[in-house]
């Protein structure tokens, strides 16, 4: 899938992944790849600016951790992020459902 198709949906994907618990950037990217069976294999450098933006919007918070002996930034969803996730997920379901509906419906028969 091209990164352009992901445009506008990256926030939803990242918030969804962080819903299951705090993760650092590398793990978020791996999880994104794993959950999408490799479909969302976007340039890894695009994820970090998106995480920083989500943090500025107060959807996620972050802190340094050094469990592995190296400093890592752990991201976690906060209340604002949960609310945003619920809203975006609802919008996405409505949108994707409408697309599906349009594609499945057979055209009306032409007037006689």
């Amino acid at each position, binding site marked *: 899938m091209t990164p352009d198709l992901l445009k506008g949906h990256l926030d939803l994907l990242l918030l969804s992944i962080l819903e299951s618990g705090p993760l650092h*950037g590398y793990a978020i*990217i791996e999880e994104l790849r794993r959950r999408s069976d490799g479909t969302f294999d976007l*340039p890894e*450098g*695009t994820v*970090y600016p*998106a995480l*920083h*933006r989500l943090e500025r919007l107060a959807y996620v918070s972050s802190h340094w951790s050094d469990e592995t002996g*190296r400093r890592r930034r752990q991201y976690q969803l906060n209340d604002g992020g949960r609310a945003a996730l619920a809203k975006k997920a609802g919008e996405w379901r409505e949108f994707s459902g409408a697309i599906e509906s349009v594609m499945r419906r057979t055209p009306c028969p032409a007037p006689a």
Partner: protein
Amino acid sequence: MPSPGLIDDYLDELLDALRVDGRRARRILIETEDHLLQAANERVAAGATPAEAERLAIERFGPAPEVARRFNDGAAQALSQRAWFLRLYLYAALLGGVGLIAVGIAGQMSAGVGLAFGKDTIAGDQPGVTYTAARCADYFEYAPGAANCEAAATDHHFGELWRNASAALILGVLAVGSHLWLRRRYAKSDDGAMLPRRAFAILGTVAFGGAGVLLTGFGALGTGLNAHAGNAMYLVDGLVALAFFAAFVPAGWRALRAVSDEARSGYVEAVVAR
């Protein structure tokens, strides 16, 4: 384990292209380095050579200018309205405060010169000025012991100059003080960061340099023609402005060189990219 040669080069390139405050830049570099090292280590463990592992990790991360652009855009977009106002105030308080302090110091020094060499050298009216009876009465009310109307007017102007200079000095100190306090208060947030320091340095150098030359020249010319009529005030103001100019010159020069280098390297990149 890969040697971080290519990764270091990549981080340098990323840092050069970032237009964010120092705190965020440092965080971005640490996160990027950690990510690239982990990605490269995993590829080495899977059998790649260290150089190949680094190259692939960097390739997967994306071109440094593109990654930096995303960070830069995000920083600009996500800046809150409060942060914009705070930055505007910080900048205005610093610029205005330094200017007011310069005016205040010049006024105090002028007052000192006036007390030493005669108030008319600082606040005297131009020769040939005529005073109406009403104006004279106002001046004598201010300086009842003055020998004549001209001396009373000079006393009045001198007092006015000293009061205004004192007010400017106090306001300037308050403005710079509030700037420093707010900078410290918001030092850990993005709100107080990213002041246009280069613009401040260049603007200060040009403003004080220009004011210094003009005021000193005006005062010197006036002194050559007539030693009185406040010409010493222009000289003192000009010399104070030149002292501030001298203080600004190193930072202004560095800022100009940095801007010039960036413009040149941007031009070279554009030519190479053609």
